[in-house]
């Protein structure tokens, strides 16, 4: 329950940690004393039934929703984000389930929203002119990396994209800019087989870059393929954390749905 002491070895200080988060909407309890631990450089999957409170947990962690009570630590430091901007400024990048894209803006604009790049020459410094060609180039490149080749026009408004293309834009944005923690809420839900693959590869690549990643997903094969640990959420709280190597998918689903008793906490 206590914050990491300065003498704790770095690897033991969770990158992101929360205790006893609560969030109630009227009579609906979305978070019920939920705990959370993301260790450095791990891929943590979060699974749970629809309505279990996974998205609310993520929103509470990133300042998109203010929990009624509870505490959060980033790399051992207590934090209380009042808005998603504060979390982002500390390097936490999130793909929200509803994507958080501006429908009428272009793909490139969305990709760089809130961190637009200025021209580096005199004019750019003087008149704060945007470097649109640069942003378009990078946006196209990031989307190509995700295999979203059907996108023909990087200046197309996001609202004209297909469901999967939109999700791709949001994922590409988070992957490109996350510097401390990357959180993805069902990033492959609308993606095709090939595109989903690319996202999993991207997640692994982010891990290689030393980042910890949170992956919320209903896709058990995906989860078991990439996760180091699995956080199981049920009725608003974490009921177990399991190691995918020691459990089968059916176990995970059984625990998640309440068909099996949660094991005693085992994963590091």
């Amino acid at each position, binding site marked *: 329950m206590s914050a990491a002491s300065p003498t704790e070895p770095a690897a033991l200080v969770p990158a992101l940690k929360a205790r006893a988060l609560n969030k109630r909407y009227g009579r609906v309890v979305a978070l019920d004393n939920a705990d959370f631990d993301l260790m450095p450089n791990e891929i943590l999957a979060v699974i749970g039934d629809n309505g279990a409170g996974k998205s609310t947990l993520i929103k509470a962690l990133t300042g998109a929703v203010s929990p009624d009570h509870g505490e959060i630590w980033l790399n051992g430091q207590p934090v209380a984000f009042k808005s*998603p901007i504060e979390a982002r400024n500390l390097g936490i990048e999130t793909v929200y389930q509803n994507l958080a894209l501006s429908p009428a803006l272009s793909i490139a604009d969305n990709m760089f*929203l809130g961190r637009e790049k200025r021209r580096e020459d005199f004019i750019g410094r003087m008149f704060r002119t945007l470097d649109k060609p640069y942003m378009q180039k990078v946006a196209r490149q990031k989307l190509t990396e995700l295999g979203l080749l059907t996108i023909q026009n990087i200046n197309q408004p996001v609202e004209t994209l297909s469901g999967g293309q939109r999700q791709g834009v949001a994922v590409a944005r988070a992957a490109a800019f996350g510097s401390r923690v990357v959180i993805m809420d069902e990033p492959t839900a609308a993606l095709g087989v090939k595109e989903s693959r690319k996202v999993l590869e991207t997640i692994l690549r982010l891990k290689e870059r030393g980042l910890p990643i949170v992956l919320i997903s209903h896709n058990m094969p995906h989860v078991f393929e990439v996760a180091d640990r699995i956080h199981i959420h049920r009725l608003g709280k974490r009921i177990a954390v399991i190691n995918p190597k020691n459990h089968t998918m059916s176990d995970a689903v059984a625990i998640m749905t309440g068909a099996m008793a949660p094991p005693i906490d085992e994963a590091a």
Partner: protein
Amino acid sequence: MSDNATGSAAAERGLPPAEPGGVASFDEADRGPIRRMQEFLHRFPTSIPFIVLLIGVVIFSFAAPGKFLAPFNFSLILQQVTIIAILGVAQTLVILTAGIDLSVGVIMILASVVMGRTAVVYGVPVEIAFPLGLLAGLACGFVNGVIVTKLRLPPFIVTLGTWSIFGALNVWYSRSETIRQADVQETAPFLQWTGTIIKPYDFFSKTLGLDLTFLKGWVLNYGSVVMLIVAAVIWYVLNKTAFGRHVYASGDDPDAARLAGINTDRTLIGVYALAGFICAIAAWVLIGRIGGVSPQAGQTANLDSITAVVIGGTSLFGGRGSIVGTLVGALIVGVFRNGLALSGLELLWQDFAVGVLIIVAVTIDQWIRKISS
């Protein structure tokens, strides 16, 4: 269907055309004139309102032959729409954020009173009085922005409230006294500078010795120049800076913008403050136009500015629209009113015709957009 909305939204913001290399590409051979026209409109969607404007001009050349289609008359229309166009630019900023500013008119009047009264009645040098007026506008806008963001109230309510409040301050500071043209001229002629007339023909013949006869009869004033500068600057801000992108995003889907990491509060406060500042510039143009300072001028300016914005194709729901549209929107209304006034139609039927024309103009605009997409 939703795609029409989408298409025109993109068009409105003047996004560049799609790049080639789609699944299929056009057969470049079979491009008849209609197809080329379509291509052109699709490439330059901002040209559409100009076409509507042109149609209006043609109609009135017939409805009021001789009088309407004269350089001098066009100059007049330009002067008549200047103030509404500037306020329209301010209003566009606010409406792009899905807000509305009912206080633009009164901010303008208040700023004009601050400039004029401080300089003329209190004898403060215009070098101080003028910036003070600009500051007053900025401050009013800032107050609007702070209330909208910090108390999270609907902009309609906030600016309705401040409309009353700023109006009271106007009565208080002005004591409802008019300042005469002659007094301004004597003490602070700078405030009237925007009303100064420029004759492009004389200008070129004097300075460059050119005899540009086609310019004969054209008359401009510095107010129109100010208007163009304001519009150009705000166009630049909206399209070429990060702040501009944030304005669009904040209006388009405020929740998404916030989640994406935009400080929407700061953006909104910036927008309202900037709008207030622009209203103060409009105040300067107003003084130039009416010569003096009148605490009761420009009271219908709110509705007029919103009208210019909406006719210019900006959505009242935020996130979609353009400055160029607003300028053309203001011009369209100006052309209609002037043309009808010259047409000799009975006043009553002029009103009728204005109503019909507004609807027709926007219908044509939508229709061209549709066939060009």
